[in-house]
């Protein structure tokens, strides 16, 4: 049984983060984070409680320091910087927004480093050995939909990233807290009142943000890759009954490739991986106004399997 962050006392978490660092396994990477900010340490402790704690002296794929900006302007709002490899890639955030900054910053670093994978912009869930890609597009509601599936027995692989191993075209989990924004926070609280949702951060660049932490099982199964059986483009329309409309192959290809983080960088390998996924999986646009309705539609989609598709 691996040691998880829940097993550390709050004082110890704070101490490590202020000193040699807190190292966590966030498959497929390992991350070390350091910060003197107490509130941030407590939030990390809660949000990542199910994650395996590692020895901070061991190799980490990503090393992040969340550091208060050296006090220059006395009466200005205190700020925090995201420091990686001795540089700060972004402008500072307000000090009390250290957690959303860490989450977005880590996403940024992941996308800039993990070119062994093709990284799609997509939520990913799985049932019965069949993964469903839920690509991101404005108004999709993918994060809320994915989070709601996670609390109803689906395995949850990722909120933001469809991480594809280019040799096999299988999707690799990257289980992280999901950043719910604005209205979805309320929707998720209503749908699953017992689910773990972290503190609210008002006034970020993306509006109100709160982080949803998925059931611990997902973290434990973070090393299990799976084939993509279905690509589902969610389209939230309030009041609409759930309807699934098939989407043609080349349109699917262009949507996936066009929305990926590193398609052009990965090049020919990416072309081959998207091809394999599109040939292997069904593709639909799913219009829905109600989460339970959407769940039933998804059940039907993955049950239908794959007809031979040119």
């Amino acid at each position, binding site marked *: 049984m691996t040691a998880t962050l829940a097993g550390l006392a709050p004082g110890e978490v704070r101490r490590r983060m202020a000193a040699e*660092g807190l190292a966590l396994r966030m498959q497929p990477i390992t991350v070390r984070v350091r910060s003197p900010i107490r509130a941030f340490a407590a939030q990390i402790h809660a949000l990542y409680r199910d994650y395996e704690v590692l020895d901070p002296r061991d190799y980490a794929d990503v090393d992040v320091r969340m*550091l208060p900006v050296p006090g220059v302007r006395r009466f200005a709002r205190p700020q925090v910087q995201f420091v990686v*490899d*001795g*540089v*700060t890639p972004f402008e500072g955030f307000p000090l009390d927004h250290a957690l959303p900054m860490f989450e977005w910053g880590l996403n940024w670093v992941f996308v800039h480093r993990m070119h062994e994978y093709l990284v799609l912009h997509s939520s990913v869930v799985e049932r019965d050995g069949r993964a469903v890609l839920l690509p991101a597009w404005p108004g999709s509601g993918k994060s809320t939909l994915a989070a709601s599936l996670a609390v109803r027995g689906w395995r949850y692989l990722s909120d933001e990233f469809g991480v594809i191993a280019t040799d096999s075209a299988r999707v690799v989990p990257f289980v992280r807290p999901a950043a719910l924004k604005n209205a979805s926070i309320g929707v998720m609280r209503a749908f699953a009142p017992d689910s773990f949702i972290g503190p609210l951060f008002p006034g970020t660049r993306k509006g109100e943000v709160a982080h949803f932490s998925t059931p611990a099982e997902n973290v434990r199964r973070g090393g299990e890759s799976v084939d993509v059986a279905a690509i589902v483009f969610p389209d939230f329309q309030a009041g609409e009954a759930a309807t699934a409309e098939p989407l043609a192959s080349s349109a699917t290809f262009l949507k996936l490739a066009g929305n990926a983080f590193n398609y052009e*960088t990965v090049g020919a390998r990416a072309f081959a991986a998207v091809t394999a996924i599109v040939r292997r999986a069904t593709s639909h646009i799913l219009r829905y106004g109600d989460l339970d309705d959407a769940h039933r539609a998804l059940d039907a989609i993955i049950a239908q399997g794959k007809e031979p598709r040119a």
Partner: protein
Amino acid sequence: MSARRDGRPVRVAATLLGALRSPASLRTLELPEWEVLLSCARRNAVLAYLGERSTAAGEIDAFPPQAQKAMRAAMTAVGRLAQLARWELERVRRVLAPAGIPVIALKGGAYLLRGLPHARTRPMSDVDVMVPHAAIDAAEEALLEAGWQGTKVDAYDQAYYRRWSHEIPPLQFPGRLLSVDVHHTICPPVSRLRPDPERFWANSQPSAMDGVRLLSPPDSVLHAAVHLFFDSDFDGRFRDLVDVHEMLEAFGREAGFWPALVESARLQGLARPLYYACVTRRTVLGAATPDDVLRELERNRPAAPVDAWMKRTLATLLTPADPADWPPAHRGLLWLMYARSHWLRMPPHLLVPHLVRKSFRRWRSPSG
């Protein structure tokens, strides 16, 4: 966080420099030391370069999987930038060639067209070209007409570029990543260094891309040597030293290169930057210049105290930065004030507002 071996801290810069000289030296590294090394390479924009050197030396496959992945990912990302740079040059060529405007590709684009091994390992954010001074306005117009757009620089920068600099403000084609910098010479017009652009054109060579020329090998080296002094990019200097080194390695084997280099430096009044580039290359990278060449260049060095200060400061500035340093030491600023006032005849009090503006803005842009 710094690497420790037997309880003593190891300067990661020394490890990195040793690795670039001989990738085999990395065989003994423990994983935590690897992490520090990879971070340092990334910080100094040479991770892809380290990967290429390690591949060429046949060492990379024996490295730990984490190190291989990190290097290969960097080579992939930077390789893509190289591909984009070639494309941008191609698009520029298609506009300027029919307009009868001759073009010389500079820096990264030139290294790619020459097929230098390190060319695909340099992160680039823009493509540099040179056109004849008389054609600079026509070139800008042609590119704007063809769809490139002036980047949003404020009135201060516009004035700075056109008055002090040797280039028009950067041009960006909408939807594409790399911008285009169009130069008309290699040094700012108000500098003490006044190379004659006509000679660069006279010595220039055709490249693999029709309609795009290259500086001669000696002139390419002189350009890179001068660039070490003028570039105000805090993060790119070590990589710029690597450029000088790689070119001297590649060209130095060709018969007649060294005499031609010394002669060009003499004729163009660029012997001093070349001298310092060679000296620093030896101090930092451990790469030697032929004795007779060095003796010839030493004739141009300043008085001993100044010479000693320059060598020391250059060695400090061009040694790879340690990513563990936070906040990073602002060692570059003092040097720039000195170097620029020295080479540019710009009084320090005029330099400060400009340098502070530039560094302030640059500090906010993502690292490569």
